[in-house]
């Protein structure tokens, strides 16, 4: 299913209204210092009133069956509002991993709960080095003799890892990296919150000690599944980044129009004007890159992996640039704890490094281009 332009506008405006009411800055600041790091009521409303968790889950699993373009609109708005919620971990990472695995049984078991907003989920890939490279995974799974598996190892940087009901873990078997499903409350799972640069996105370290696990998809297919999830997740993240960058630009332009120094608005000084224009250029590029990548995913065009890599690099850079310049345009006030600029700065840097950072995404793009 896909929405036309006016339906997309309507989706954007209803999500924005909801977030303005339920995730204003005060709410974000309160949540980023609480545990769990999201508001259960807001999450329930997002599910019941706006059906956000179900938006891109296929209809056969109880979802509404929309695609990456609609998902991008929602994520842009969430990125603007710095919403603290398990949406990214559950819908963008875990649900997409289930779908990418092609395991219909696992999808039927877990996706309806996710679509209904009852189940939250996390995807555990990186270990202490933070890498998403399947070759660097050391967590292991071995058959338990009854058709099940037992999982051992440690995962870090797991988004919403202390609160997720379901954890999808990439672990090594004899056949190679493979995807496993684990109940977080199983015996042998220890989840510990990590201190994070971006406090609006909770992360955890998970330790697995002989934990019962269910194989998802084929044994040894983890590398392929991860490549697909990375494409989808980086495009999702790119939308979030484009939304955040747009918000930084708006803050700067508003301030430059109204703040007076030397008897005139600071926006009338060419140095400030050009800073804002440079931000606009980055934001326009970011939106174009992320929306075209989402469109390419929706249409299933063969250049999607390239478009995804471009969106990831472009939006990471644009958001970081906009978040930095936003503080400069605001001057001293932008460096205070009370001003929201640092919240966007933290989110921008954290997002840029989430899947490995510039050195990794540059090479991923070149690899996709056969260079």
């Amino acid at each position, binding site marked *: 299913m896909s929405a036309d332009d006016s339906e997309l506008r309507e989706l954007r405006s209803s999500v924005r209204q909801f977030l303005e009411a339920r995730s204003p800055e005060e709410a974000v600041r309160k949540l980023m210092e609480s545990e769990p790091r999201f508001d259960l009521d807001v999450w329930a409303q997002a599910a019941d009133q706006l059906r956000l968790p179900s938006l891109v889950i296929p209809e056969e699993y109880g979802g509404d069956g929309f695609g990456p373009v609609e998902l991008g609109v929602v994520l842009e708005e969430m990125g603007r509002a710095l919403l603290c919620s398990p949406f990214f971990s559950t819908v963008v990472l875990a649900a997409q991993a289930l779908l990418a695995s092609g395991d219909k049984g696992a999808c039927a078991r877990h996706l309806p709960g996710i679509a209904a907003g009852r189940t939250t989920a996390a995807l555990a890939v990186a270990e202490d080095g933070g890498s998403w490279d399947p070759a660097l995974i050391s967590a292991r799974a071995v058959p338990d003799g009854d058709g099940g598996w037992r999982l051992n190892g440690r995962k870090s940087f797991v988004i919403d890892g202390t609160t997720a009901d379901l954890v999808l873990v990439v672990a090594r078997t004899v056949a190679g990296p493979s995807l496993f499903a684990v109940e977080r409350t199983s015996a042998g799972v220890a989840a510990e919150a990590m201190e994070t640069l971006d406090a609006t996105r909770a992360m955890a370290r998970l330790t697995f000690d002989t934990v019962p696990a269910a194989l998802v998809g084929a044994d040894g297919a983890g590398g392929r599944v991860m490549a697909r999830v990375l494409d989808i997740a980086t495009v999702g993240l790119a939308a979030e980044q484009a939304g955040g960058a747009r918000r930084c630009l708006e803050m700067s332009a508003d301030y430059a129009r109204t703040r007076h120094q030397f008897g005139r608005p600071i926006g009338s000084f060419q140095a400030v004007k*050009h800073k804002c224009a440079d931000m606009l250029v980055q934001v326009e590029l970011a939106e*174009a890159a992320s929306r075209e990548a989402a469109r390419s995913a929706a249409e299933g065009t063969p250049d999607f992996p390239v478009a995804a890599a471009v969106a990831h690099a472009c939006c990471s850079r644009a958001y970081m640039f906009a978040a930095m310049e936003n503080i400069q345009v605001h001057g001293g006030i932008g460096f205070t704890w009370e001003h929201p600029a640092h919240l966007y700065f933290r989110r921008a840097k954290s997002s840029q490094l989430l899947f490995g950072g510039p050195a990794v995404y*540059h090479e991923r793009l*070149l690899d996709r281009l056969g260079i």
Partner: protein
Amino acid sequence: MEHDMQDFTAEVRRFLDAHVAKAPDRTAFTWGEGDDSMAYFSSLPPEEEREHVQRARDWQRIRHENGFGWITGPPEYGGRGLTPVHDLLYDAIESEYDVADTGTLSVIGLGMIGPTILAHAQPRIKDRWLPAMYRGDAIACQLFSEPGAGSDLASVATKAVRDGEDWVLNGQKVWTSVAQHSQIGLALTRTNPDAPKHRGITAFLVPMDAPGVEVRPLRQMTGGADFNEVFLTDVRVPEDHRLGEIDGGWTVALTTLMNERATVGSEGAGPVAAALSPDRLSALMRATWTWDDRALRARLAELLVDAMATEHLNTRALRTLRAGVTPGPERSVAKLMYGQNLTRAAHFVADCLGPRLVADTGKWGTYAWSELLLATPALRILGGTEEIMKNILAERVLGLPKEARA
């Protein structure tokens, strides 16, 4: 609309198939084979340059005879009366064919000055020049810039004084592309030095063969001479060659400039596309043994990210246009990026080539890049300097207050 576009597409293809061959696949290339020219500006000898212009005129005439000479123009002047979307569609299809480069006629004359004549000229002038321009008979140039009026175009000082039924023009213009091939020029002149500077300007159509018009080529840093200085000494222009109101020439200029923004920045094929082609750049890295230089690889990646994101911006603008909506700031942003992307590409290539860019060893695909390198400073100036483009974005898109201006 969809259906209409399909019919139009089929008609365009029938026309092109009947007259020209398909262009060679520009993405397929082998290192060391074919043309390695990277010239953005021409540096052809005058003889070849004239042949080039003649080929452009011939192709424009064929387009005109088949109903594609002026797709958006009104039928009474030989136009087709279709929409800008048809025009863009035609360009997109034609780019797949091996046709003569009509840039000398189309970018300034047909793209910018034609619409200005249509909007502001007196009827006899429209009859006289519009069909001739779109038939490829007349080439037009833009006599706007002056040594003392670059980005601040309203500072033009070339004088026009009324003398009976004529106006007498005196002054100097500069940066005039294609003046050496032109039959007419659209000139901005000062007719009222006492009025505020935007209100004392009048526009005239100047026949380039009028006594007192002298065109001198201006050699630029690439070595070629694409631009000219044009000296106007007691040039008599009849009253009916005036465009718009007396002292109301700024409105006329704005029509041209609006069309300029629609025209510049829509570059595509040729050396420009080659300079940003991942295949060519990676082949260059292999040929220069820089393949596994991590710093250069990171720069290449950034370069390609910008080039591809800029493409996405253009795609979006086109899609918006197809939906019948005026695009946002995409084109201005794309123009800004386009100059920067090519600049970064040229310097990236220079760092791969090292000394091989300093002097010509005769080796394919090496020294040829100096042509692009030397063109890049101009790419950040032409059609409005980066500073002016940024002011436009900040003021018109973000609504920031204007700078204090004289």
